[in-house]
């Protein structure tokens, strides 16, 4: 793939991922992860691994499935009313392309969330380790460094950022 094609393909992938969150297509979102994929929001920007560390999120596909099933359960009280989100993803940079087509990419995001009458903002950077497959990219690791990760949380986070 040419350099510009990789840039375009990764951008489209990130936009699609953000859209799945904003449209609450949870299963499709989880399916973007490789079988051994991990979604990680470090508790501290200095952390270099999710394994064995306190983390705001550190979820493999099984845990992501628990979260999805919980959100969809009719008695998940905190989902009523549900929230709305809007993600904007930008500043996409391709950091590395391996010979087999696997990619490491960095980007910036801004997420606005609305629940009842309350608006919250979360912003920061994504680092995606993407595996190239026949069906398109799959996420091996997504690291989310929120600028406001260390701030006190006024209420909690319900799903992935």
């Amino acid at each position, binding site marked *: 793939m040419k350099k510009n094609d990789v840039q375009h393909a990764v951008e489209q992938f990130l936009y699609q991922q953000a859209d799945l969150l904003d449209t609450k297509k949870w299963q499709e979102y989880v399916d973007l992860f490789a079988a051994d994929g991990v979604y990680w*929001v470090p*508790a*501290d920007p200095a952390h270099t691994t999710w394994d*064995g*560390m*306190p*983390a*705001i*999120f*550190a979820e493999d596909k*099984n*845990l992501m*499935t*628990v*979260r*999805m*099933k*919980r959100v969809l*359960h*009719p*008695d*998940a*009280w*905190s989902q009523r009313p549900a929230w709305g989100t809007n993600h904007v993803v930008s500043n996409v940079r391709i950091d590395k392309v391996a010979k087999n087509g696997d990619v490491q990419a960095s980007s910036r995001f801004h997420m606005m969330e609305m629940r009842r009458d309350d608006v919250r903002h979360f912003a920061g950077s994504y680092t995606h380790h993407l595996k190239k497959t026949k069906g398109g990219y799959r996420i091996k690791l997504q690291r989310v460094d929120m600028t406001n990760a260390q*701030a*006190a*949380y*006024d*209420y*909690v*986070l*319900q799903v992935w950022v």
Partner: protein
Amino acid sequence: MLQERIADLSKYVEPDRVRREVYVDPGIFELEMQRIHERYWIYCGHESQVPKPGDYYTVQIGRQPMLMVRGKDRKVHVLYNRCPHRGNMMCGDRNGNTGEFFRCSYHAWTFHHDGRLRTIPMMESGYSGTRFGPDNPDCSMKKAARVESYRGFVFASLAEDGPTLLEFLGEAKIAFDDMCDRAPEGEVEIVPNCFRVIQRSNWKIFLENQLDALHPSVTHQSTGRAAHEVEKEIAKKAKKGEAPLSYHMLSAFATVTIDKWDAFQTLNYPYGHCILTGYMGLRPQDPDTLAYDKVMIKAYGKKRFEEIVGVNIHHVLIYPGLSVQSPLQQLRAVRPLGVDRTLTEIWHFRLKGAPEPIYRRSLAYYNLVNSPSTLVNADDLENFWKCQQGLKSEGGDWVTFGRHFGRDSEKAGVVETGPNMGTSEAPMRNQMKAWAEYMGNGR
């Protein structure tokens, strides 16, 4: 107006119900801060948070911004985070190292780690002949009236008089004994990460929920079911046929059905402290636990080991602001921010000398249950907010705590729930009884 209310406070609490104003009246909140939080023992932090001289953490006690600092003398001091000169906050960061001494950012007054004045710029020419200077104690940073620690857990009281820390904790000190004894080295070490989550509700609502055995299977049904489904799928696929223990911690919210929670017991103590017994079946026989058992037996001997792991505690609530889950080394400190806003500071600990997989168990609980992406507390927080909203309503004057009322047994000031009455509202009755005593005990 406050004075008029003080006389009335006893009428707000009856043995099996309390008036709604107790949760929503800002005047009562101010009195609570004066009479409870700024007088009795409040948890500041763990000694391992400040290992080196000059290390400090800021901490809120009632309405008072304080500092917990390790001195050059190795002692842990608790000071008001305030320069005595013009009232400037001394440390603006949440934590850090202040170096050899504190130095005010406004006029460079400096102070020793124990708060004593060290230097003032041009002190001799500026202050000779005035009543200010090193001989005036008002020119030092003010210290908490009393500081004591128990097994590394540091508490401060802003009142000169009152019970000692151990008198105050009484039987509830088992929270720290149980946690530390489970370490082969008899000590725990803090994992230096604090999750901070704000609850939009009165601080007492959180405390009441901590030992409320009726709520888990109602509030946390969705997470319990979801985890149970995935747990079964993993077990089906896995060769050994078992999902990690963390799934069990979550699925228990569905598998331990509402009727089974009566099998638990609460023990209710003076000052409002409570213990909820029961341990979600967490003494498994997997290889990790067996390896840990071996290390423990080597450290303590078989007899003492059995005593230690036989301690049957789910939760210990230390009134008015600490919730400890000793078997999983979790601690939540409650900092009231206002009548309808409460900050929880959530920490976990490593058992010194225990194998890594045992720490991973504690970590899994910390991440899944206590992080800001919690699969469990989200629904609690929603309920707390709804409670606070509902209590503003004049649709009723009372909050009731009548479940199994009149069936508790009391021996030497300790209220025990009867057999098969684990869902009794005795802990809430006990907390409000203590509250009335604290509040009636005005300065």
